[in-house]
């Protein structure tokens, strides 16, 4: 049976993720409450503002149910802000920002600078035959990768795509360049 995939829709680039997943033929639910989260098999955590998303997770009563589902091994794809929320440690975040700690990496927020430094570039991804076109928007930088975390892609030597158990995290936005391969791989691995 095809999995039912949720896209966390508190804020950010959720619509672009949902459109790609729908084209790949799965049922997609927008997730804003704990009841909605309970109904899905896997979750995409999109880009956006990690500080705002962290607050909305807490105020919407999603923080604990989400942590429980992640502890239970739910498949999750986190991009940009989603990567920040799933990391073990965040540098240059707000003091009250929540870390779900599922992926043993340290990330620095906005490490490339302001929007003027945002960029697009081709990157090589392990297992893909041709380069993946990656869009980096005020992107975080992975400064430390713990044992048990596999680096699947780098840009200028920095890890930008990592996998740890059921979690895949990207510093860039695979939902913006029209290439569905990362989402297809995420679904195939569920």
């Amino acid at each position, binding site marked *: 049976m095809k999995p039912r995939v949720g896209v966390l829709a508190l804020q950010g680039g959720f619509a672009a993720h949902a459109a790609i997943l729908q084209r790949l033929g799965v049922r997609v639910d927008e997730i804003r409450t704990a009841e909605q989260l309970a109904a899905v098999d896997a979750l995409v955590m999109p880009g956006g*503002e990690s500080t705002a998303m962290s607050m909305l997770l807490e105020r919407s009563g999603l923080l604990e149910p989400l942590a429980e589902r992640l502890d239970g091994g739910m498949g999750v794809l986190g991009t940009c802000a989603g990567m920040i929320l799933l990391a073990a440690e965040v540098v240059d975040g707000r003091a009250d920002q929540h870390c779900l700690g599922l992926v043993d990496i340290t990330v620095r927020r906005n490490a490339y600078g302001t929007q003027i430094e945002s960029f697009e570039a081709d990157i090589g991804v392990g297992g893909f035959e041709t380069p993946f076109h990656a869009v980096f928007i005020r992107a975080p930088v992975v400064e430390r990768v713990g044992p048990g975390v596999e680096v699947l892609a780098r840009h200028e030597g920095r890890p930008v795509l990592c996998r740890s158990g059921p979690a895949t995290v990207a510093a860039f936005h695979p939902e913006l360049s029209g290439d569905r391969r990362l989402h297809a791989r995420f679904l195939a691995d569920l």
Partner: protein
Amino acid sequence: MASMSGTSSSDAAATGATATGTALVKRGLAEMLKGGVIMDVVTPEHARIAEDAGAVSVMALERVPSDIRAHGGVSRMSDPEMIQGIQAAVSIPVMAKARIGHFAEAQILQALGVDYVDESEVLTPADEAHHIDKWAFTAPFVCGATNLGEALRRISEGACMIRSKGEAGTGNIVEAVRHLRSIVGDMRRIAAAGDEAELFEWAKQLRAPLPLVQEIANVGWLPVPLFCAGGIATPADASLVMQLGAEAAFVGSGIFKSSNPPKMASAIVEAVTHYRDPEILAKISSGLGEAMAGLETADLTTKMSERGW
């Protein structure tokens, strides 16, 4: 995804090189602000209150629109020192306003590293015929629009985000509703057009480039995100404009002219997220204190939304 169609992914795809300031990169930040609230702030302290409440971005300006209305005079780009103070105070994106057509102000804002430039009718226009050539900048631009033709003219000049104008500084949602209904309604009618000849006629009527009209016919939406500004004063206002098709909300005077700005700011953030859930909206709308005092638009001597060509 629909709103990214027609976007060149630049030469980077062909060369493997790193490219900044492309349409995809500029529109990408607007994608990330969707479902969020961008708040007008005039001091670093205001900016911190906005970030604490869950704003996705702040708009740095010297006076909120209701004060611009009250004080009159020429309204210009903010003092760079004030913008830098706000950039230092928060970690979320910082936007700032330039006058319509004032490309020198926009150049200064880009040099300051602001994340989005708003070529805004809230400031006094600097040019009565020309808007800024926004393609010439690495920084992305947002522009206001009262109807679809105006939105498409701004996009053809390089705007990467459109906000319906509403009537800033009034706390009255009626103009925002008029503009959103006009923009979204015309997109729906174009998507239902019978043949190409109808699209030629739409382009003439809207005074808009034909390729952009054809793109709307194909995908049903603007090639950039559509946000709403001008008159949002309560969580219910935010829910209303989101249900009418806005993808995020700009809130100006509505927060810092209310009786309890931190509380109102948090409530509007939650209202934009949960805009389709009336039970949650009822809870977050309770006990907020006074919303800003509103103005009847028929009584206005200056309609800011009429600025822009």
